[in-house]
């Protein structure tokens, strides 16, 4: 079904109006419903659809919703397969279908959702910045898009479908949640009598400020603070790829310190390869190994730097799967573990283990993380009878394994949860404001250059 429809559609996709597009989707849905019960043999066909069409979709900037829809049956199949497995894994966030949203989904959000679901944009910071940037676009074009029931500032009703569409693509990151919450607060606080264009400008300005203050300048502060912990001759170990850690290492290198880096990596993402190429092209002496080999090098390491997805009030760090293993081994060998984490990644919730909240990466070799030397038929790339493949994306590092958390407001030692509580409350905001004022005064030109 996919091939016969895709050719005319791909051409006309951009030109079509939304109504036309929706009509087309309805037609497809009807056709699929008619086809499905009659021919069970045709079920492999839609399965192949998303695989073959995913790459061109992502490469081009236009996102035909049709692809998203055709992805649905295959994932539903997987869901049904998972259901018979162990129940303890059933609640993990599975790769969900990128469904057609209920409300009006802005094209930039549709595009972003596809980028998220295909892991083209991954990482807490990158996702948060991309989301905020997309919201900026949405808020500017909101008038032309929902002309009839237009209200500005965008109310809860109109922004919700956009967000839920993103969440459907991939579970929302804590950073996105925090940013959106802040955004909603800003919107609700804005003056209702403000002219529309001014309100939009104000909103976009607030978004820009958020990105600048909480992410970009925060990273600069962390880069300086954490970089000062690297001494000449150190062996720094890092796991996977964190944008902050990358900046810290590059910053310390450009500050003239000589140290070597051990990059640990693991499936399913193998993000460390990218970090490795960045670091080694910057001239840093690097060693690369996969996670199982960690035990043989940990004794040589002087500091471990890792990034975080979020930091919970009990002091636990929720981060890329494998971070907990690295921290555990480092702790066992008395190697300090430093977590680089901006304050906007702080989560109000408490998490006790990696099971309560997690996310699964898609099954198969999506990230081409298996070695090419390994014959593909020797690998299990899909679920079989009695066999299920789970690729958890995150794990939770217990606070006992963490030596220090470097934030833009300073280095926090491994502290009892109560302090995190007080930190995440008002006094924390004060701290941030204080530090940011200081920073803005001192490095205003550099931040300007970042935005221009």
């Amino acid at each position: 079904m996919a091939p016969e429809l895709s050719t005319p559609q791909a051409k006309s996709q951009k030109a079509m109006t939304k109504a036309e597009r929706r009509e087309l989707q309805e037609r497809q849905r009807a056709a699929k419903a008619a086809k499905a019960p009659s021919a069970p043999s045709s079920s492999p066909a839609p399965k192949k659809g998303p695989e073959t069409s995913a790459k061109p979709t992502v490469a081009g900037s236009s996102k035909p919703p049709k692809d998203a829809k055709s992805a649905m049956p295959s994932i539903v199949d997987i869901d049904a397969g998972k259901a018979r497995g162990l129940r303890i894994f059933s609640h993990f966030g599975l790769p969900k279908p990128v469904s057609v949203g209920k409300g009006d989904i802005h094209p930039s959000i549709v595009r972003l959702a596809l980028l998220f679901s295909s892991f083209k944009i991954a990482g807490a910071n990158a996702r948060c910045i991309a989301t905020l940037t997309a919201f900026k676009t949405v808020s500017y074009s909101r008038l032309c898009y929902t002309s009839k029931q237009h209200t500005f500032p965008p109310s809860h009703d109109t922004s919700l479908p956009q967000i839920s569409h993103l969440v459907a693509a991939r579970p929302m990151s804590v950073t996105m949640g925090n940013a959106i919450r802040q955004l909603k607060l800003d919107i609700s606080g804005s003056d209702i009598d403000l002219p529309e264009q001014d309100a939009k400008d104000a909103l976009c300005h607030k978004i820009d400020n958020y990105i600048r203050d909480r992410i970009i300048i925060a990273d600069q502060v962390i880069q300086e603070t954490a970089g000062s912990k690297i001494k000449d001759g150190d062996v720094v170990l890092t796991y996977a790829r964190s944008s902050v850690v990358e900046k810290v290492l590059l910053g310390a290198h450009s500050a003239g310190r000589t140290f070597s880096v051990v990059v640990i990596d693991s499936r399913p993402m193998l993000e460390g390869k990218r970090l490795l190429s960045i670091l080694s092209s910057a001239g840093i002496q690097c060693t690369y190994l996969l996670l199982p080999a960690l035990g043989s090098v940990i004794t040589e390491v002087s500091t471990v730097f890792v990034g975080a997805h979020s930091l919970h009030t009990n002091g636990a760090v929720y981060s890329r799967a494998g971070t907990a293993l690295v921290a555990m081994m480092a702790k066992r060998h008395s190697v300090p573990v430093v977590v680089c984490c901006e304050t906007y990644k702080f989560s109000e919730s408490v998490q006790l283990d990696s099971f309560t909240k997690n996310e699964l990466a898609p099954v198969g070799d999506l990230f081409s993380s298996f070695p090419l030397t390994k014959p593909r038929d020797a690998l299990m790339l899909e679920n079989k009878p009695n066999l299920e493949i789970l690729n958890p994306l995150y794990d939770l590092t217990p606070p006992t394994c963490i030596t220090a958390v470097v934030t833009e407001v300073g280095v926090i030692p491994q502290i009892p949860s109560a302090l995190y509580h007080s930190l995440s409350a008002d006094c924390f905001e004060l701290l941030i404001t204080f530090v940011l004022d200081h920073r803005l005064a001192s490095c205003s030109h550099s931040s300007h250059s970042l935005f221009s």
Partner: protein
Amino acid sequence: MSAPELHNIPGHRAVETLVAKLRRRQVIGSREAALETVLVLRQVVARARFSNIKQLIAIIREVGRRLSEAQPKEHTVGNTVRRVLHNIREEYNTATKGAASASTRNVYSISKFVLQGQPRKHNVALKSEATATLKEDDPDDPDSFAGGSSQCSWRPSRTSSTSWKPFTTTSPRTQKTTSTQSKSADARFPRSIHHLTLIRSEIILTIGHSRTVESFLKSAGHYRNYTVIVAETAPSYSGHEMARALSAASLSTFLVPDSSIFAIMSRVNKVILGAHAILANGGLFAISGALLAATAARAHSTPVVVCAGQFKLTPLWNLYHDYGALDFADPSSVLGFEEGGLVDSVDVVNPYYDYVGPELVDVFITNDGDHPPSSVYRLIKETYDDDDHEL
């Protein structure tokens, strides 16, 4: 004792072939290495010319030295040689007991053997009770290893002859027995051990592909219904083979990347590992990643069970862990040549094995029963002769 030159030893061609194979890493893995060694020793002994046990032992030692020098990290090669030497001495001991006690007391008296530090009395006592049939050779008897808990499955076949001449005929047989044992040591576990280790609807974590663990889990699957989580164990991704084998045996199997070992450990009831070599201090060498799994298990207070055949017992003490103890493999499976320029500028490390300390292991399950790490040294004393520790 003057060591014979290797080229004077009959069958040295087979020895040289195996030496080359070990050097070229064509024989990898404790099991393969042990089996190959047994076959070579069998050839050597069958053709050996000697007039007393001293010469025979010298020949085997020379062969063993050559083989273990070829690949010192394949500990099972040395273990097999030591075991064969032990069997020969025991055989000799039994065969000459009558004659020696009578008049011709030579330098190889029983008393000397007894004084060598093994609890030999125990074995001797058992021999007198043992029946004439070779229990180990009976493939259908499930109790052949489980039955006598103290009966070593590597026990050599015995001869009723009182002269030591029949060595030439019995020794190959001895080694054949040893060979079948090292094969079946994998497959045979006392049924009681399954009861001991696995209960219904447990979740087991294992890493890599150990044939011993595979057969253990498969045979336990006959009595118990449980779930196995296999970590895929980069860069060999041998966990995929394991998952395939287990799911084909209709065990409920999950395959996870190595990175999620810590995440799932809180739901795992037991960790079962295979071993490359078990050391005298109770630690072990195992596929890289075993240390991660064992440490994560310790962090969650999850028991760690090691399944290994007795031929992996190695009379070595590894009291520290450093590069010298490791063996490194081809890095191209970690960072392939498709990465282009990266390959030139970075170091890539790909160790075969991890050293897992005795404090991380709860129990060793061998074909000779289950032992805590603290009693492994004693097991080794019983398995090998002290003078063979240095080949």
